[in-house]
């Protein structure tokens, strides 16, 4: 498919889902009423609900989805491995650990930016651990095993911090950090996450030319003037910023970065540079759709976002493992 057409279709889908995210909720306001309350304001609770509850939720869905889709595409391109994904290789869990330390140590209450900064630091440690364990051109098995180890360690430490907290609600929040949710977030969360996601996203989008060259192999890329070390640094910082900030406000939402690039790879002619843009839009569409679905399926149960993405993503992952194994044999 031609690139402008593909991107146009995806952008249209994202716009439609963004509007749906603004229009769906337990207060039956309706599509027209919702948009009128959002834009024009007025009396009563509707403008407050739209501007303080639904708008931040839709904006976070857009930003986090785009960031996760982009991170997956960039990681897969750089590692030349279709199974690389921030959630599966433990970067999301490491970011969650950083966020949990920020919240339950009281650091984020003293200083709001501590939340994304700690999460970013956690994500950074996670990416560095994976690259150190699995190497740059990672074999699938090593990559997945390293991811399992990093995830397990981060999840255990997260549970430990929550169990040791003096707050009676802390232990119950393990589910949120493992599964993620956008429920009841505010504009404050948008304000602390957006700068990091945007900066990290821009860093990842500029990797396109290098990733395209890298499909020819590292030596060929080097002969084209691509500096692998500089690329790796930008990738690591970009992923850490995006995944760190996203996880800090929404918990660990898995599989988005795995499924979206895979679905769009053939439509982008297997060109990593094109895949980056398409995956950003596709990721936004997936997370917005999943978040709308949590509100439609069980509005009063606070269904977790990561439950839906994992229900779709995990079978996909198994399919990809089988395919990779068959190709390797």
């Amino acid at each position, binding site marked *: 498919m031609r690139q402008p057409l593909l991107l146009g279709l995806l952008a249209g889908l994202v716009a439609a889902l963004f509007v749906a995210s603004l229009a769906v909720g337990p*207060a039956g306001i309706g599509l027209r009423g919702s948009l009128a309350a959002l834009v024009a304001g007025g009396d009563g609770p509707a403008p407050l609900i739209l501007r303080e509850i639904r708008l931040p939720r839709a904006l976070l869905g857009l930003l986090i989805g785009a960031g996760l889709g982009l991170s997956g595409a960039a990681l897969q391109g750089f590692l030349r491995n279709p199974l690389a994904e921030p959630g599966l290789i433990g970067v999301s869990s490491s970011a969650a650990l950083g966020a949990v330390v920020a919240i339950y*140590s009281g650091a984020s209450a003293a200083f709001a930016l501590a939340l994304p900064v700690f999460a970013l630091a956690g994500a950074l440690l996670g990416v560095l651990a994976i690259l150190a364990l699995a190497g740059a051109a990672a074999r699938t098995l090593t990559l997945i095993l390293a991811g399992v180890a990093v995830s397990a360690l981060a999840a255990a430490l997260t549970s430990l911090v929550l169990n040791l*907290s003096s*707050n009676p609600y802390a232990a119950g929040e393990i589910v949120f950090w493992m599964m993620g949710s956008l429920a*009841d977030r*505010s504009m*404050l969360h948008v304000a602390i996450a957006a700068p990091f996601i945007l900066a990290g996203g821009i860093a990842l989008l500029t990797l396109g030319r290098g990733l395209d060259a890298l499909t020819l192999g590292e030596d060929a890329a080097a002969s084209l003037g691509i500096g692998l070390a500089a690329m790796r640094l930008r990738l690591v910082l970009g992923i850490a910023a995006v995944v760190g900030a996203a996880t800090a406000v929404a918990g660990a939402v898995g599989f988005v970065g795995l499924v979206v690039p895979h679905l769009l790879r053939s439509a982008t002619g297997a060109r990593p540079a094109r895949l980056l843009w398409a995956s950003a839009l596709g990721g936004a569409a997936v997370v917005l759709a999943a978040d709308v679905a949590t509100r439609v399926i069980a509005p009063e149960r606070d269904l977790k976002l990561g439950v839906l993405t994992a229900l779709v993503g995990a079978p996909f992952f198994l399919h990809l493992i089988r395919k990779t194994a068959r190709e390797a044999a």
Partner: protein
Amino acid sequence: MILALAAQAAGAEGPAVPAHPARVVSINLCTDQLAMLLAAPGQLVSVTWLAGDPAFSAMADHAGAYLANGGRAEEVFALHPDLVLADIWSPPDTVSMLTRLGIPVVQFPPGESMADIRANIIRMGEVLGTADRAAAMAAAFDARLAGLVRLAPPPGARPRAATWAANAYASGPRSLTGAILDAAGFANVAGELGIEYGGTLPLEALVWAQPDIVITAESAPGASRAEDVLRHPALAGLRVEAGLADADWTCGTPFVLDAVARLAAFRAKPGP
């Protein structure tokens, strides 16, 4: 006669409950408080460590006079009690272990209404052999409750209130918190929205319902994400009062009337 009563209280196969227990151990925060109120001097040996925590216990000041236990069968057995007081939701493995070791366990239902609280006071008095003291306490409870209820407006004229705690949890009319709200003269918004006992009331649904007052819990020690929602900017247009301490609404004891009186004061006083 006494033997027959004792056998009945202990159930079909458990160890017999003594008519005048001399070494009583409580392994539940709520039975802790009723027992501290009604036990004869020296009769109660140990209460849970939670009973000494002012965040959860209305009698934290009194708990220091007793040994603290963690509710585990092993440590309870080591105290050589002749009676253990528990909740019907206490861990079944602990209760059956104690019963197998020959220690009678009396389990109380949680007090979910004013009538439940009264019944638990009377029953605690019977179990501890201090029925006279229990009858006096029940009478005082009735009188104070009647006095508070008399001040409440009639059903049509009540302000609409929602109790809203961490994780957007609202209490319905059939919960103890709902009973406290009702006695204080408020209509329960959670009930309007179909929440019977308690459950998640999404922030959006709360704002849409436009209650006259949102009563939240005082914040718990330490930080948590669950309590973030109580400070959400969308609540700015509503009257929010931190009026319910966990110590008041966790257990069905006469102390719930303190909570009723405190909430009734919000009704009398106009919002900020």
